């Protein structure tokens, strides 16, 4: 079953590897531009113990923690904004603004405030990831069937009950759209965080590897980042399947679709 569901990814992965190998070997794309898959694999193995393991661990920690913070913050903010159209109109431009302040500008400010610890990195990851969660949450909450809310109001439903029992569950699919996006952006966030000064992590490895023309090492880092991203993404999708079982997997069996 699981094997059946995975083979397309595996197949595409293999085709892609083949194409990659083809491009590098047959079209002779230079190794420092695009290293061949086997070079990346070799580097991955050779540098795992010395460099990549600890870097993966550091970056993975930043990703997971930053992601968790951003989901919590995004849900809280989205929920809070939902309660007031005025607050929403007032703060939405700020939220968008928060996405246009580039990392290069924020990084020094954060470093000065928080020093060169993990904190500024977490803040950067969270800042990048919380936005889709907020937008997903707000959009989900705004699209709840108003009739359901009306129904709740006649059934002793007060504001909080309506939120927790109707609005939030109804918004969950849309919330998960945002959370899924956040999961995909966590890697980018962590790399940027590390660009602003870090002594370990995959972003740091890349930053050192690029001027050293260590393309195979850089690609090995990218492979690891992608693997972690995909893992986080899959995790989120599993959580969704668990938490939103009524949705997108309707049990209406035997339909001729």
């Amino acid at each position: 079953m699981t094997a059946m569901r995975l083979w397309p990814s595996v197949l595409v992965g293999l085709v892609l590897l083949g194409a990659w190998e083809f491009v590098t070997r047959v079209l002779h794309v230079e190794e420092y531009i695009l290293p061949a898959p086997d070079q990346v694999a070799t580097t991955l193995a050779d540098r795992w113990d010395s460099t990549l393991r600890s870097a993966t661990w550091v970056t993975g920690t930043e990703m997971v923690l930053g992601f968790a913070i951003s989901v919590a913050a995004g849900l809280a903010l989205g929920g809070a904004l939902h309660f007031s159209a005025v607050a929403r109109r007032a703060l939405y431009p700020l939220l968008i603004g928060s996405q246009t302040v580039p990392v290069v500008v924020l990084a020094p400010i954060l470093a000065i405030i928080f020093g060169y610890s993990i904190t500024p990195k977490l803040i950067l990851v969270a800042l990048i990831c919380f936005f889709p969660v907020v937008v997903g949450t707000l959009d989900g909450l705004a699209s709840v069937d108003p009739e359901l809310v009306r129904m709740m109001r006649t059934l002793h439903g007060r504001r909080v009950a309506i939120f927790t029992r109707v609005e939030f569950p109804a918004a969950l699919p849309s919330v998960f759209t945002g959370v899924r996006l956040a999961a995909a952006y966590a890697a980018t966030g962590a790399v940027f965080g590390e660009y602003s000064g870090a002594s370990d992590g995959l972003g740091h490895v890349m930053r050192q590897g690029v001027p050293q023309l260590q393309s195979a090492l850089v690609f090995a880092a990218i492979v690891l980042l992608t693997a972690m991203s995909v893992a986080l993404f899959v995790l989120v999708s599993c959580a969704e399947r668990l938490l939103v079982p009524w949705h997108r997997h309707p049990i209406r069996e035997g339909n001729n679709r």
Partner: protein
Amino acid sequence: MFARRSRLPTAQSPAALPPAQSPAVSPADALRSTGTGVELRGVAKRFGETAAVAGADLSVPPNSRLGIVGPSGCGKSTLLSMICGLTDPDAGTVDVLGAADAPGRLARCAWMPQRDLLLPWRGVLANARIPLENRGLSRREASRRVQPLLDRFGLAEFADHRPAQLSGGMRQRVSFLRTVAADKPVLLLDEPFGALDSITRADLQDWLRAMLADEPRTVVLVTHDVEEALLLCDRVVVMSARPGRIVASVDVPAYAGTGAAARRTRLADPDFIALRDTVLAHLESAR
């Protein structure tokens, strides 16, 4: 006390059910102590171009039962939603057990919508116990209280099924059950039994009659089934086609007994048939 009226057929202590947490309602008895029932004066409502209700006057004495019949689209559902305070009338006043403000009306009315409006992510039991959860009961306790009604309405087997897994009639029964479980002094029922076969429908009508006999409530029942209106209500009014106004009112003499036999007798009663034909004639001319 609220719980005194509770007809959830469990052996609970009367004080166990906490009062509704609505701020507008403090002691539950206050909700029923006034002399008025549901009063509408010159209530009107437009939706853009559409005049849905035009100057409706209605007076439902406390603990009496009013049936509303009328052509499709004449504003019956709109009227119910104005009574319970979910929609503001454009003109006129609505008073429910002494409350004229929307929150006060909301606190007093349980509304069974025409669409079932079940929560798709909750199973039958979880949907049915929503009003009790909203009143602060634990899930366990709330489940314990609605379970007997599930059994009674033939839904016990489906307690964990989600709405998408139910038939249309089952969904309607869950919706009805949920409204009853809200345990409010005023029941606004919008075609409560429209999706049920005649046998199940008769059964539920009987149950409702018995429940109301036991502990009277003020009921406004919208239905397309004239017989149903006449069987369940003290008075039946006929609304005209849009813009809806009350064009006829028929008082219905009470009848005793429950069960299939009493019902059959009632349906065969020439007085009843005459009454039915009167209402139908009004309805015909109301078109």
